[in-house]
Every structure is written in C-alpha cells, then in structure tokens.
C-alpha cells in the first residue's frame, strides 16, 4: 500500500484518479505514481461499491439468486443470468426446451451488441469526442426497447430462469429485431466514418497499451482484450454452451495487442453477433419456453461450474451445494477483475494521457470488478 498523496522517496509524484472521475466509468480509484508525465506504477484500489454479492447469494434460493447477478455486470445482465441458470440446470439435470435455448442465445447476442455500442460511445467520449456517444445510444435504445417489450425491463431484466425463460417472447419481437438489424446495417458505416478512420483517434490508439499474448494469459485476461493480443479464448468456441456449437460465426482475433486492436475486435464482434441473430431470428422453434421444474429447487450435493462469454470476457459461476435449497458457497469469476489487473503492466512507461485510452479499451464495469 502506497501513500495516496505526495511524493515517493525517489521524488516521483503520486496522484489519484478517481474514485469520482468521469473517465473511470464508476467508482474506480487508481493511485498513480508518475515521473513527469511518464507512468511508473498504477495501483487500483477497490471496494467502493462492494456489496458482498457472493455472500448474499448464499442466503437466497436457486431461483432468487439469479436476479442479483444482473447487478454485477449490468451491461451484460442477460448473459450473467444465463450463466447462473445454466449452472443450476447442470445440477438439476434439466433439459431446456429448444425454443428457450434459441431465445436465450438471441437475448445474449442482443445484449452483447448493446454493451459494445455503449462501450464504443463511452470510448470515444473518453478521448474527447462527444458526438459518437449519441450515435451509439440511438442504436442501443432500439435494443433496450426490444428488451423492455419482451422482458419488462431495460437493464436488469431477470429473464433467464432455471429451466428456460420467464415469459414467452412478445409477438412483435421478431419484427422488431429484424428492424433493428436493418437499422444497424445502415448505421454501422457511420461508426467507421466518425471514429475508426479518424486520424486523431488512430494516433491515440495505435501502439498504445501493448499487451503481449503471454502477458494476457498470465494475467488471466479474457474477452476482447485477450483476443486483441491474438489469444483465442472465446468461450462460445472453446467450451460451447447452449446451441453455440451449431451456429456459424467467427472468433475475432487481432494480433497487434495495442488499444486499436482491442477496439477493432469489439467492432468486428458486433457484426458477428448480428450474423448469429440473423441465423436464429427466423428459426425460433415452436414449443415450451420453460421446462417443468419443481416448485422448490434442490441441487444435489456437489460442485457445479459454468463458464460463459459475456461482452467483457469469460464469466464463471461456481456453486458448491450441500443438497439444500440454498447454495453452500457461490463464487463468481468476473472478467473485469482480471482485465483490470493487466492495466498496471500495460500502462508502465507510457504517458498519463494514454491511460484513459487503455482503460477505455479494457471496457471496465466497476460493479463487475467489485462484486
């Protein structure tokens, strides 16, 4: 633990970024040691939004604990809920109806696009461009409206339940998703015009925050930051869950390992998600949207693990059951925590102004880091 203000023994200055800072997207506190403008060390201080979610879940039943995980990574709440539902289904040995599986994957991919859209807007805003934020929100709003109509909420849906989904899709769902795909395809070129091709943006991103594949693996980095370094780690490909092994999509890999590579991974990933949605939207099978489960769920004694790919990386749920109605212990592996740990390594030796660009490309969601 370093002092939070002042100078170190060798004359370097210690400054604080956060906990209330617009570029940290939440209550992240970074204690930065700088020599002039060069970063010597970045030390994240956590705990400002710790809610002890893992401990809370131990007193909730297997139906109740799922809603809490929406409050961790609130931008991919569907995918978090999906992981928990899958983990409970693993334990119960429930067969999920085909219709529910397709709906779940559709919701996951819509969430992934919405999350990347928001990241894109916030990323450009971090670097000083305010306009892209509104462009991103225009498309994201359409997804939020779709979610509102089918799930009843815009951010914390609690739609995935053990055995399937809570309600059947709204009659308008298919048409509205098709409208969204049309809108997205007509607007995605604007993203490149406004931001990707911009010379100022490129110079601030290229060659900044290099992360080698070896370091990415050793820090446990997953998701787009790892794939930007060329590490193949898409859980949808490596450990397929639900119906992902029957779908045609590519795992996006970039090899440069800098901020721009991480940026391009997310932009290209959105197109892959659209591809997945296009494959499924006309092929939602008929049938039940939820399997018959007992009123009180009891997992057999044992340990259950489920990994999924959220918009930020690999999310894991680990349940230890003693055979009761509540879990004995729950552990969440959140992608943001591991991704943040690589920030110090990436930032050392670069300029203070580039730190915001690096943090932006890691796509940190603080409640996810600080459960």
């Amino acid at each position, binding site marked *: 633990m370093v002092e939070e203000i002042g100078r170190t023994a060798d004359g370097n200055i210690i400054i604080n970024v956060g906990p209330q800072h617009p570029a940290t997207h939440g209550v992240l506190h970074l204690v930065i040691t700088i020599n002039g403008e060069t970063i010597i060390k970045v030390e994240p201080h956590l705990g400002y939004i710790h809610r002890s979610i893992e401990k809370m879940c131990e007193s909730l039943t297997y139906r109740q604990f799922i809603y809490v995980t929406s409050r961790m990574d609130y931008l991919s709440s569907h995918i978090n809920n999906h992981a928990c539902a899958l983990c409970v289904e693993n334990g119960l040995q429930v067969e999920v109806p085909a219709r529910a599986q397709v709906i779940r994957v559709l919701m996951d991919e819509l969430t992934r696009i919405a999350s990347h859209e928001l990241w894109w807007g916030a990323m450009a805003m971090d670097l000083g461009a305010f306009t892209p934020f509104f462009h991103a929100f225009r498309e994201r709003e359409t997804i939020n409206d779709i979610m509102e109509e089918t*799930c009843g909420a815009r951010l914390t849906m609690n739609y995935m339940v053990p055995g399937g989904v809570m309600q059947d899709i709204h009659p308008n769902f298919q048409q509205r998703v098709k409208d969204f795909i049309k809108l997205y395809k007509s607007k995605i070129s604007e993203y490149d015009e*406004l931001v990707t091709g911009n*010379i100022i943006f490129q*110079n601030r991103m290229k060659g900044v925050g290099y992360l080698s594949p070896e370091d990415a693996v050793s820090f446990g980095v997953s998701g787009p930051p790892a794939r930007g370094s060329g590490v193949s780690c898409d859980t949808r490909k490596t450990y397929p869950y639900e119906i992902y092994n029957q779908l045609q999509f590519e795992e996006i890999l970039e090899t440069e390992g800098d901020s721009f590579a991480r940026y391009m991974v997310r932009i290209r990933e959105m197109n892959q998600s659209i591809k997945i949605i296009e494959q499924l939207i006309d092929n939602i099978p008929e049938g039940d949207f939820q399997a018959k489960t007992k009123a009180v769920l009891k997992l057999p004694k044992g340990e259950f693990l489920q990994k999924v790919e959220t918009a930020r990386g690999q999310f894991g749920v680990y349940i230890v059951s003693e055979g009761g109605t509540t879990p004995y212990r729950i552990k969440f592996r959140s992608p943001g925590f591991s991704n943040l740990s690589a920030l110090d390594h990436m930032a050392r030796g670069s300029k203070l102004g580039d730190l915001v660009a690096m943090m932006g490309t890691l796509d940190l969601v603080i409640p996810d880091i600080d459960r």
Partner: protein
Amino acid sequence: MDKNLNSKNSSSSPSSGGGLVQYIKDVFNGVKSLLVGLRRTMYYFTHHKEIITEQYPDNRATLVFPERFKGEVVMTHDENNEHACTGCTACELACPNATIKIITKFDVSPEGKKKKAIDKFVYHLELCTMCNLCIVACPTDAIKMAQTFEHSVYNRADLTKILNKPGSKIREGVE
C-alpha cells in the same frame, strides 16, 4: 524532427517510416479522415428528422409503456371490490428481499365456519427490485405488475403500501 512528425501523422502505423512524399500523403489522408467525420456531423446538423430525443416531462400524456413493463406490484380488483388473493404466501416466499408481508385473519362464514383470508397485503416498494418472481409464483394471478414509474416521494413510509383495497374480499370460487 521529421521522423517525429511522421510518426505522429502516419495513418497506417505510428512506427512506419517513409520519406517526404509519405509524410505529405499522411497529412492529406489525416485531413481527409477528419473531413469525412465532419461530413457526417453536418448531415445530422441539417437533417432534423433523424432526431430521436424525447422531451420526457413534457410528453407524459403520450408516453406508452409496454404491457410487460415492471413498475410496481399491484393487486387486481374487479368492479365488486373483490380480489383473487387467498393469502397462500407463495409470493412472500418467492421474494428475495422480503418485500411482501401478508397478514391473515380468519373470516367466519354465516354457517359458523372459519376461513383464512388476507387482512393486509403489505408491499414495500422501497425494497422491491422488480424481479417478477412473485407474479410468477402466484397461483391465482391475484397480483400483477403495473406500468407506473414515478415513485419518488418525500416520506419513505409512503412507499409501504397495502395492496388490498379497504373493504375488499376474496372473489367467490377462488381457492
């Protein structure tokens, strides 16, 4: 100096070298990329049809919410002031936050039989996370989600509501 500038304006990679021709090319490409972005901005500056912002407090009268929108839990009453809640406490057990508390009483029927009925259905809106689990758990569809959303009050106690209307009783035939 030349190399330094070159690396700053290179559009392909900051480390790529090159002569004066490359330098001038990079400057032109850089300016072009800015103009391309600006063209998009100017397009929206002159095309007001694409504006999608809603003027929220002014458009209250025309706001439409989807029927599934989760705003708050309400109990449905019919025209005879009758509801369908049997007081089985399924919702109370399903709730993760102890939002619902059901206080029951015993009604005495004309034949002298005792029957369990709800006295008060207490709902703490301040604890509710709109997870919809109580609605799913209810066996008689007595409660549902309402589309209200402006829940701010000056006094916290105002958020604790009693959902069954005064004088209401259970509908005939609901078990």
